C-alpha cells in the first residue's frame, strides 16, 4: 500500500510572506494534480511534502509519521524538483548511479536500476554524455529518472512539463501515466491547465497559498454555485429543443448561435439536466450532432474560483 500523506491546517510563512495557509488535505494512490498560477504555493506544498521545509503551523504526515527530517521516508518517495539543476560535469548514468548509491544499494543493484530508469525515460543512448550537453527535454527526463530510479511508492513532480517542446511533453505525460500503475501515488504540479488535464482528473486548485478546491473536475464544478454549467448542443432544430427544455426548473437560460444549429443552455442542476436532455431529444426525434460542456474544463473552473 502506498504512503498516504495528510496535511492538517498546514501553513508556511517565509518571514512575513505567506507561502501556504490552512491546508487540510489527504493524498493517496493515483495521480493528484496541483494546479495554480506561479507563486500560488504549489512548490511550497511540495517541499513540505518532501520534508525540505518545516511547517510553520499545522502538520504534514506520511502514514502518520512527520515528514520533516524523516530521512527513512525518502526510500519510499521520489522527488523531481522544479529547478533545472544538475551536477553538470557528470554523465547521465553517473548522476543516477551516484544518487542511487546514496540510498545504500549495492553496486550491482545501482547499475541495474540506473539502467532501468534510463531506459524508462529513453535516455540510454545519451547515458555516457556529460549532462551539460543535454537538451532541455533530456534534462527534464533525467530529473524524472532520478526520482523514479529507486522505484518509490510515491512520486512527487514539481512542474515536470515546464519548458518542454510538445513532443517531449507527450513523452513525459506518458511516463507519468505509466508510473501510476500498481497503486502508486503521483503528485504533479503545473501552472498550465491543459497539462494537468492531460494527466489527471483529480486536482487540487491552489491560489495565494490556499486550497480553493479539490476533487475531480465535475465535483469542483458543482461547488461553484454562483456559476451555472454551460451545455452546448448542436442539432438540426435548436429552437425546438430550446422550447422543449426552457420551462424545466433545471434550465436557467437558453441562447442560440452564434453558429447555426447551436443552442446553449445554462443549468444549476447538472445531473437533472443531463437526464432530461437525451429524453427530450429522443422523444421529439431531433437530429442531435454534438453535446459539449464548454466550461467543464480546468480553465473555466479555475477562472471562476479565482474570480475572473
Amino acid at each position, binding site marked *: 500500500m502506498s504512503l498516504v500523506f495528510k496535511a492538517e491546517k498546514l501553513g508556511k510563512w517565509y518571514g512575513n510572506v505567506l507561502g501556504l495557509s490552512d491546508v487540510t488535505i489527504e493524498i493517496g494512490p493515483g495521480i493528484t494534480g496541483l494546479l495554480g498560477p506561479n507563486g500560488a504555493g504549489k512548490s511550497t506544498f511540495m517541499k513540505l511534502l518532501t520534508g525540505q521545509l518545516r511547517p510553520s503551523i499545522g502538520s504534514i504526515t506520511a502514514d502518520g509519521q512527520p515528514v520533516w527530517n524523516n530521512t527513512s521516508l525518502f526510500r519510499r518517495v521520489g522527488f523531481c524538483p522544479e*529547478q533545472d539543476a544538475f551536477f553538470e560535469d557528470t554523465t547521465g548514468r*553517473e548522476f543516477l548511479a551516484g544518487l542511487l548509491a546514496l540510498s545504500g544499494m549495492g553496486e550491482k543493484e545501482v547499475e541495474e536500476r540506473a539502467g532501468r530508469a534510463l531506459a524508462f525515460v529513453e535516455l540510454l543512448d545519451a547515458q555516457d554524455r556529460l549532462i551539460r550537453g543535454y537538451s532541455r527535454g533530456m534534462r527534464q527526463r533525467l530529473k524524472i529518472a532520478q526520482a523514479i530510479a529507486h522505484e518509490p511508492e510515491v512520486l512527487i513532480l514539481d512542474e515536470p512539463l515546464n519548458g518542454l517542446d510538445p513532443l517531449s511533453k507527450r513523452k513525459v505525460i506518458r511516463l507519468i501515466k505509466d508510473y501510476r500503475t500498481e497503486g502508486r501515488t503521483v503528485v504533479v504540479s503545473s501552472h498550465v491547465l491543459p497539462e494537468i488535464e492531460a494527466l489527471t482528473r483529480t486536482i487540487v486548485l491552489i491560489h495565494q497559498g490556499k486550497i480553493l478546491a479539490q476533487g475531480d473536475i465535475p465535483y469542483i464544478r458543482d461547488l461553484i454555485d454562483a456559476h451555472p454549467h454551460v451545455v452546448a448542443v448542436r442539432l438540426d432544430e435548436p429552437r425546438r429543443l430550446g422550447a422543449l427544455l426552457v420551462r424545466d426548473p433545471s434550465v436557467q437560460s437558453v441562447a442560440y448561435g452564434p453558429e447555426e444549429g447551436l443552442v446553449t443552455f445554462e443549468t444549476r442542476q447538472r445531473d437533472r439536466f443531463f437526464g432530461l436532455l437525451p429524453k427530450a431529444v429522443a422523444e421529439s426525434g431531433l437530429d442531435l450532432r454534438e453535446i459539449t460542456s464548454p466550461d467543464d474544463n480546468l480553465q473555466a473552473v479555475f477562472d471562476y474560483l479565482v474570480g475572473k
Partner: protein
Amino acid sequence: MAGGVFRVLSFTGRLVRRARRTKVFAFLCLLPVILALIVRAKALASPGRGLDGLAIFGNIIVAFGLQFLILILALFFGTSVVSEEVEGKTLTYWTTRPVPKPAVVLGKYAAFVAVLLVLVLASTAVAFLILNLDRLDYGPAWSFLGKSLAALSLGVVCYTAFFTLVGTVLKKSVLFGFFFSFGWENIVQYFPGSTQKFTVMHYLKSLLPGVGETSPNVLQFLMFRLDPSPAWAAVLTLLVLTAVFLALACWLFGRKEYLFDEG
C-alpha cells in the same frame, strides 16, 4: 550514520574529481613545485652560489602554503559543502535521499579534505625534494618536512571545517571567508600577547618552531612576534576546534531550511 557518511563521501569524491574547479585549484597547488623548479634551475645556472633549499622551502610553507594556499583551498571547498549546493540549487538531491543530514555534511567535508590533502601534501613533498636534492641525508630537513606536512594537514582539516560551518550559516559565505582569511587570520596572528591565540594560524605556526633556526633573517620576520603554544596544545586546540566547527555545522544543517533564489 557511518554508512551514510561513506556513501556521501564516495559520491562527492567522484563529483569533485570531475569538477572544473578542482583542476583550477590543482594548478594552484602546483605553484610551490614550479617555484622550486625555478629556484633549482637558477642554482644550476650559477654553480658558485650555494642554495639553502631548506630555508626557501620554509618560506614557501609559511608564506605561501599556510598563509595563502590552504586558506584559499579551504575557503572554496569548505563553503561549497552547503552553500554551493544552495546556489546551484542541487541541495535537493542530497536532502531527499535516505541519508541523515549530518552525514551529508560530514561525507562532503571528508571528501573535500581528502582531495585537498592529496593536492597540498603531494605538491609540498615534491617541492621539498626539488629544493633539497643535495641534502636528502640531512635528518633535520626530513623532520621539518614532517612538521610542515602536519601543519598543512591540520590547517586543511581545521579551516575546511570552519568554512563548512560558515557555508552552512551564511549565504555570502565566500565574501565573509575572504575577510576572515586575509583580514583576521593574516593580521591578528601578529598581535602580541594572547590575542594571536584567537587565530587558527597561531596554532599552525606553533607547529613549526624550528623554522627560525634554519634561516633567522627571513623567517624571524615571518614569525614576527609569534609566541608559540606548545605543540601538543596546538594540535589539541586545532582538533577540538575542528570537532566544534563540524558539530555546529551538522546541527545547523539539520535544522535550517534552505531556500533557493528564484530566477
